[in-house]
């Protein structure tokens, strides 16, 4: 894994805008940063693919374990929604996608930092924008990137289930979310839903028809299937939350993903697989209390403290040798936390990359790299493309 400098394409902003990336610059600083790229030798990403499959397997086992042992309190799921989540799991509701974030140090197995299982973004960048960049700059080179093709597959699978229409919803007024959802909508349209079968709807415009006991769009049509870029932990706590228990809408990602998009997954994975020499190689020790962490790893253990329901790198504290080395603010600081052993990201001259490995329809199928000048990756961390040697 090497970090390389390269002149950006002339007019790169206009180029990526034509491909759909309007949020290429945040507060005057490039978010899409093609003045840099990472390169990998042939076979160098094999461990990442292997780690992705291993982590997915462990995560699915963790869902089953959480259900069998009724660990819903750990995940802050109220009793009213337990059956809803369990039913979603037991009927094997299809998942579309997820992104595992790994720390990859040279000569070490990738270490799972967290799993963005419910509402991952940076999808358009990984699937489309870095692909066109590759074709422009390195036409004969390759990339770990089958994301688009796998998305096409999964929408064909879903269409085969007989769901006649597919809605796609994001929060009003947020361009990145909107574009992510529009990309997915467009793939679904190509996969057979067509422009009339795959339609966009603001999350705020989802309706609940009291008389018909169904969720509706603005034309009062029942929602048969909807992809919502909006987290389950918010949905179940909002006004329409109780109506989820009655409606017959198929939600994507499915409700069982609420158990995987929650930081309590990390200590549960360690509890289940920490003693397995092969599987634990991809995990970092994690615990539900600082006391447990220190009992297992020693009083001077370095750690990262994360709120169970935090998002986008908010409210994270990293402690090394008893000293806070990085800290972020945000709105999620009030709830319970987990403690994960600190694992330093590789440092390329002050740049810290996290490798996001995409899982679509059960396939490990692509990678997107985010880097930051701090060891905590957040919403504004730069997306940097990559090249894989043939």
């Amino acid at each position, binding site marked *: 894994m090497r970090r390389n400098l390269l002149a950006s394409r002339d007019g790169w902003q206009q180029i990526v805008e034509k491909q759909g990336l309007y949020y290429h610059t945040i507060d005057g600083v490039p978010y899409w940063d093609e003045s840099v790229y990472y390169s990998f030798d042939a*076979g160098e990403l094999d461990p990442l693919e292997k780690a992705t499959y291993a982590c997915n397997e462990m995560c699915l086992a963790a869902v089953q374990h959480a259900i069998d042992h009724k660990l819903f309190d750990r995940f802050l799921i109220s009793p009213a929604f337990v059956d809803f989540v369990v039913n979603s799991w037991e009927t094997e509701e299809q998942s579309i996608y997820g992104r595992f974030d790994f720390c990859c140090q040279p000569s070490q197995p990738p270490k799972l930092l967290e799993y963005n299982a419910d509402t991952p973004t940076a999808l358009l960048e990984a699937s489309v924008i870095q692909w066109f960049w590759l074709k422009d700059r390195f036409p004969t080179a390759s990339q770990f990137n089958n994301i688009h*093709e796998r998305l096409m597959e999964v929408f064909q699978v879903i269409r085969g289930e007989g769901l006649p229409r597919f809605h796609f919803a994001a929060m*009003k007024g947020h361009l990145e979310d909107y574009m992510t959802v529009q990309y997915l909508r467009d793939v679904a349209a190509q*996969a057979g839903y067509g422009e009339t079968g795959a339609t966009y709807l603001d999350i705020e415009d989802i309706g*609940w028809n009291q008389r018909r006991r169904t969720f509706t769009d603005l034309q009062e049509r029942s929602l048969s299937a909807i992809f919502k870029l909006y*987290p389950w932990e918010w949905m179940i706590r909002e006004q329409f939350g109780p109506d989820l228990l009655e409606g017959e809408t198929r939600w994507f990602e499915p409700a069982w993903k609420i158990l995987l998009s929650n930081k309590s997954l990390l200590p549960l994975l360690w509890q289940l697989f920490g003693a397995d020499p092969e599987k634990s190689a991809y995990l970092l020790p994690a615990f539900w209390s600082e006391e447990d962490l220190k009992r297992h790893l020693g009083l001077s253990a370095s750690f990262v403290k994360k709120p169970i329901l935090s998002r986008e790198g908010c409210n994270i504290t990293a402690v090394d040798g008893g000293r806070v080395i990085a800290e972020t603010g945000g709105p999620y600081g009030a709830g319970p936390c987990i403690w994960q052993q600190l694992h330093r990201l590789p440092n390329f001259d002050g740049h810290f990359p996290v490798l996001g490995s995409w899982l679509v329809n059960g396939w490990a199928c692509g990678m997107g790299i985010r880097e930051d000048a701090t060891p905590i990756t957040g919403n504004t961390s730069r997306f940097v493309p990559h090249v894989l040697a043939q």
Partner: protein
Amino acid sequence: MKLTQAIHLSLIGSVLVLAGCSRTDDEDQKDDDKDKNGRPGHTTHTHTWFPRYYYHPSGGSTGVSTTTPTHSTPSSPVSGRGGFGSTGHAVGGHAGT
């Protein structure tokens, strides 16, 4: 190759052709090889997605309108709305991760 994989590949090929894009035998072979080997990367696929949404740089209070013109006034406005979205706006962030 498993039968299901063969069906997947066949379907993908059909869709790409319909979308005005074709895959070469060489590309299919590489995809086959990758699946067999369980190895990532080395793809030469052509992406078929281009923006076909509605974007209004000057619209909305944030400078961006994300409402598509496919929306219309409900013909029978009997559903209650606004029951989702409040948390996202309260925390002032976006919902993706």
